[in-house]
């Protein structure tokens, strides 16, 4: 029962985040890159203001799987880097926090780009 409630929260919050994005797409005709940047910056702002941590406690993957989680990791990494290594941490911290995800995306993109042919004309 406990686990069912957890997944219900993840589903509801994750769905709601995507629903807001869809409203933006429908109302403003923004391209997907703009939507993603907007969500990323929202994640950064939420992390800096301290609102992201309680959201993560409540909904887990519901807020970390949307691209906001990526933004919050960047901001968190930068702040942790500052605490550990001073100014160098401010430069390197953000990237090193998301290095694993970014590397996976680039390597997978490159390999699948080499072996797979595009099926749709839409980019």
């Amino acid at each position, binding site marked *: 029962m406990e686990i069912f409630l957890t997944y219900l929260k993840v589903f509801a919050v994750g769905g709601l985040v995507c629903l807001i994005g869809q409203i933006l797409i429908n109302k403003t005709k923004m391209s*997907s890159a703009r939507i993603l940047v907007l969500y990323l910056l929202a994640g950064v702002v939420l992390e800096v203001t301290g609102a992201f941590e309680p959201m993560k406690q409540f909904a887990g993957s519901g807020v970390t799987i949307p691209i906001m989680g990526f933004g919050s990791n960047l901001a968190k990494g930068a702040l942790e880097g500052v605490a550990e290594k001073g100014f160098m941490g401010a430069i390197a911290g953000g*990237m090193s926090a998301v290095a694993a995800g970014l590397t996976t995306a680039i390597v997978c993109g490159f390999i699948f780009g080499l072996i797979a042919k595009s099926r749709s004309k839409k980019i």
Partner: protein
Amino acid sequence: MIDRIEYQKYVSDNQPKSPMVRTLIAAFIVGGIICCIGEGIGDILKLIFKDMSEKDVATWESCIMIFLGSFFTALGLYDKLGHYAGGGSIIPITGFANSVTSPAMEYNREGVFFGICAKMFVIAGPIIVFGVTASFIVGFIGYFVV
């Protein structure tokens, strides 16, 4: 002759509208399901690797989700899902993986260097630039405040 404002009104009246309610429901359900898959992967990782830290679980979780997003893009399934779900497939991290893999596949006929490698960041480039710049600004301000 019609003037500009009249013409713009004509265009906005006649361009195809995405059906509001159907796209919203689709985005909600698909987005929720993708987040639940992520949570499920995290739970399975916690079951298999009991001594893994919370942070490592989250990192592995997003890496696996990115791989899956890339993989289903290569199979051509993710774009079909995107056509149906819109925001529900764009906003999760799998959508980011899709935005890297999809142009890479699209441009592989233009060669490895200027096709795949250069065009890979057509959509993801702004995201990385904005994200990294924002994180630097946060760190820069944090350095002087703390």
